[in-house]
């Protein structure tokens, strides 16, 4: 089980934003992605999750091994905490909903509708979804938004437990999660250089 990214280029709105990205992630490892706003962290993560095609390079991941969590948690307001999790568990072939709720400290909220959760509680529910998918590679885009300090620590513990089980995590974040063992990759050096406009000519991509 390994994720290998080599010379990867990703594009947003038809323009290449990152190029030459390379790293490898083995079972039990985590990688933290850093970089200024707009450098293309979300674009890179969506590409790694398979939601958009890469424009260059190679991306080797085992099939159906990646799960993705971003700013939107994919929760349904009229479903309860347990129902929301049970849905994603069933879609992915039956993960353990009880254990996931226990790990993210949601057991007491199990029968509350997602509409009545606070922003932080929603986030915790969104992250608990990662556990029920049973997928080894977590691709996380700013997972700690609206979490308080205690929840951040709780979440770091969950990630650590996931790694201990042989999982992997790719996390784009600005805050310190307290995951000392995780490697850090700064994306700024991979920022794509602008192609120089050549005397009013038109190249194939117009850019």
């Amino acid at each position: 089980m390994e994720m290998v990214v080599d010379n990867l280029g990703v594009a947003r709105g038809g323009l290449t934003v990152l190029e030459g990205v390379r790293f490898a992630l083995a079972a039990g490892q985590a990688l933290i992605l850093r970089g200024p706003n707009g450098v293309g962290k979300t674009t890179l993560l969506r590409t790694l999750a398979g939601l958009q095609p890469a424009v260059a390079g190679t991306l080797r991941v085992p099939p159906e091994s990646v799960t993705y969590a971003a700013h939107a948690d994919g929760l349904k307001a009229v479903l309860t905490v347990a129902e929301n999790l049970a849905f994603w568990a069933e879609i992915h072939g039956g993960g353990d909903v009880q254990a996931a709720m226990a790990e993210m400290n949601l057991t007491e909220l199990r029968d509350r509708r997602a509409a009545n959760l606070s922003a932080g509680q929603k986030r915790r529910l969104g992250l608990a979804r990662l556990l029920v998918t049973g997928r080894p590679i977590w691709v996380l885009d700013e997972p700690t938004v609206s979490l308080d300090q205690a929840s951040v620590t709780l979440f770091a513990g969950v990630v650590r437990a996931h790694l201990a089980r042989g999982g992997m995590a790719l996390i784009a974040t600005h805050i310190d999660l307290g995951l000392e063992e995780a490697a850090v990759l700064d994306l700024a050096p991979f920022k794509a250089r602008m192609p120089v406009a050549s005397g009013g000519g038109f190249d194939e991509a117009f850019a």
Partner: protein
Amino acid sequence: MKALLLRDVRLAIRAGGGFGLGLAFFLLVAVLVPLGVGPEPATLAKIAPGILWVGALLACLLSLDRIFALDFEDGSLDLLATAPIPLEGVVAIKAFAHWLVTGLPLTLVAPVLAVLLNLPGPGYLWLVVSLLAGTPALSVIGAFGAALVVGVKRGGLLLSLLVLPLYVPTLIFGAEVVKRGASGTEVSVPLLLLAGITAGAVALLPFAAAAALRVNLR
């Protein structure tokens, strides 16, 4: 797959919108048309097949944008796209769920509304049969339209503009079945054509819709 179907149906029932709304709209059409056209039983009997089909079609249109837009906004669609179900399957299931909560109820209440519009006796059976055969196509074609405009903010009007021309063949054959049924003539030709369009749409459009969704997600 089953989980997705159950969730969509449960959401439609709990959230209220769409489900009851389509039926209410259908009822409104059946009430407003006689008020506009006049109470003449013969006139109403003549236009009933067409009005019932147009009403069902427009009622179906009302809830189309909910098929994907809500899941797109809350991020579920991203997660479904990375889930182990093929996106084509997601489209088919969601279209089926839409049919269960709109097309099927519309079919079931249509005979009641047909009484209001004075549909001739032999037409009732064919009204239900034609709606059963035709409304699945409305849901699948609608899902395709919804997949095209899922990334467009306030895409409701655009969705109608895209979907209504695609509804033309279904409407023509569907209303023709009821018209012929009501007048007691042979219905098999338009009914088979209607069923053929539904079968073709159900078989092929999920692929086009999934392609459109992938484009919209990237």
